[in-house]
């Protein structure tokens, strides 16, 4: 299990608390420059936090506080972590097999033993026949497999993946996803994945930590993150399109002044008359051809069909809000939707998730 509590003010701010159990794939997601890679490098010992603590598999790797400074700081070589670099970082003068031999250098004195073990790892990665190739004779995907074999060769206690799929074409990426999924079952070590691709994190990770400006905003399983983002910034970062603002008071959410009022469940922590952000997942929206008491008048602005899925952009008459709705092509046909047509939108209040306008650690989060 990995426990990392990191803090630094300069040069890039970092304020992060990560726990990753054995066998878990934990994704760190955030925009470019948000501090994801810094966090990963700090865990590996390539960067140093000002204060904090890193423990892995019961061993203390780093500890520093404001009073005593750095008490413990193991070198990267002593931390037993497999690190997969974004640009592979293979040793260009060594063949694939020799690259994988490098991490075994201090563990196995016999060259034949090192070579045999390295060959086994290459076979496991499906590139056994490429053992004698130099890195510049391998494709991007093959290089990444060699790099993964090298990262795992000395049986690390944690695997750190720094945007490992960003420089690879889509079909190769699918193959690597499969390899990673298979490895996870066998390895049973914590795996930290840094990515800016939410779909990738959603597909691979058990839990996601959203990072912004070095601060961990929320850690949750993907579905929870998409359905119940902790605050407005998280909702923005995870790409929730239907995000609005309203006033919340005693279980009632007012939208568009007081024109719409929804009954919304909360934990009783929000003071009365508080401006809040709220989101509604796709399954909380429905369209109708006829008006009813709970529907809003909206016009269709754009229909984008992608195979059997259609993305419909709507504009409400009340409040002039833009709303995105996803439906099957059959549903679009049933409703006879076309650009410019007026339709009736129903919002299911029970699916609404409300959140503070500011991050959770900001004391002004419930004030505007």
């Amino acid at each position: 299990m990995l426990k990392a509590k990191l803090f630094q003010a300069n040069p890039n701010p970092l304020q992060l608390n990560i726990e990753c159990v054995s066998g878990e794939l934990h994704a760190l997601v955030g925009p470019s420059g948000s501090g994801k890679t810094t966090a990963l490098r700090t865990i590996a010992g390539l960067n140093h936090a000002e204060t904090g603590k890193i423990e892995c598999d019961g061993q203390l790797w780093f500890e520093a506080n404001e009073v005593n400074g750095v008490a413990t700081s193991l070198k990267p070589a002593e931390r037993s972590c497999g690190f997969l670099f974004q640009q592979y970082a293979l040793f260009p003068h060594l063949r694939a097999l020799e690259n994988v031999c490098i991490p075994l250098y201090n563990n196995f004195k016999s060259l034949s033993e090192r070579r045999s073990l390295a060959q086994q790892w290459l076979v496991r990665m499906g590139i056994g026949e490429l053992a004698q190739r130099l890195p510049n004779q391998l494709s991007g995907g093959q290089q990444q497999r060699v790099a993964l074999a090298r990262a795992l060769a000395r049986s690390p206690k944690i695997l750190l993946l720094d945007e490992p799929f960003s420089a690879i074409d889509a079909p190769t990426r699918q193959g690597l996803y499969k390899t990673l999924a298979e490895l996870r079952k066998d390895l049973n070590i914590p795996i930290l994945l840094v990515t800016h691709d939410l779909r990738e994190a959603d597909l691979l990770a058990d839990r996601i930590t959203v990072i912004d400006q070095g601060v961990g905003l929320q850690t949750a399983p993907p579905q929870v993150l998409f359905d119940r983002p902790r605050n407005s910034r998280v909702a923005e970062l995870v790409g929730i399109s239907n995000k609005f603002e309203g006033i919340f008071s005693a279980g009632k959410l007012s939208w568009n002044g007081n024109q719409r009022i929804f009954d919304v469940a909360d934990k009783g922590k929000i003071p009365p008359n508080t401006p809040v952000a709220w989101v509604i997942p796709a399954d909380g929206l429905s369209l109708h051809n006829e008006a009813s008491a709970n529907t809003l008048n909206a016009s269709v602005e754009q229909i984008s069909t992608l195979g059997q899925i259609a993305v419909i952009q709507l504009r409400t008459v009340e409040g002039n809000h833009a709303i995105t709705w996803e439906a099957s092509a059959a549903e679009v046909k049933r409703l006879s939707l076309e650009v410019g047509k007026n339709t009736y939108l129903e919002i299911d209040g029970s699916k609404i998730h409300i959140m503070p306008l500011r991050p959770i650690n900001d004391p002004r989060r419930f004030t505007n």
Partner: protein
Amino acid sequence: MDIEALLLSLKLALWTLVLILPFGVWVAHSLQSMGKCRSWLEASLALPLVLPPTVLGYYLLVGLGGKTILGIPLVFSFTGILIASLIVNLPFAIQPIQRAFEAINPEILEAAQVSGLSQWQIFRLIELPLAWRGITSAAVLTFAHTLGEFGVILMVGGAIPGETKTVSISIYDKVQSFDTSGAGVLSLILLGTSLIAIALSYGIFGGNPDNTKKWRS
């Protein structure tokens, strides 16, 4: 043909190479991790490039002329011209190696660190092989430059046959005594040696990666 001068030049070039290359590798590698004083040190090491050979020769003559650390004057001796040659060749030996170390992607060195290698192992298994072309280039430049060195050697060593009279000085002597054919032969030999050295250097640069030295990992 002055075989004695030719052999002396070769001896001087080989000794210079043997002594300066390990030092050059050490200095070039150490410069990577130096902080504020790095620019000053780099400038000092490059000084022989711009300093007139007579100026450098004069200071060496003064410095090595009296009682030295070894207890004897070193001017007008092979040891004296070897010391002069080492100083003159510092930039030729250090700069190509330094550029080669600088060209290594830092991420590769980080990959070596997280692979569990010690600093010495990283140097031996990763940095040295990757800087090999820079080291070869430094060796070729130093060798060719030592063979042709004239001003400083003349100032520090004079022209004692078999002790300090190198090929370049022998060519000068022959021209002074109107032995143009003798000077021509030696000049041709120096020209040929320099051409071979440069061709060798370019041959290594132009080679495919399979020609790189084989390192056991």
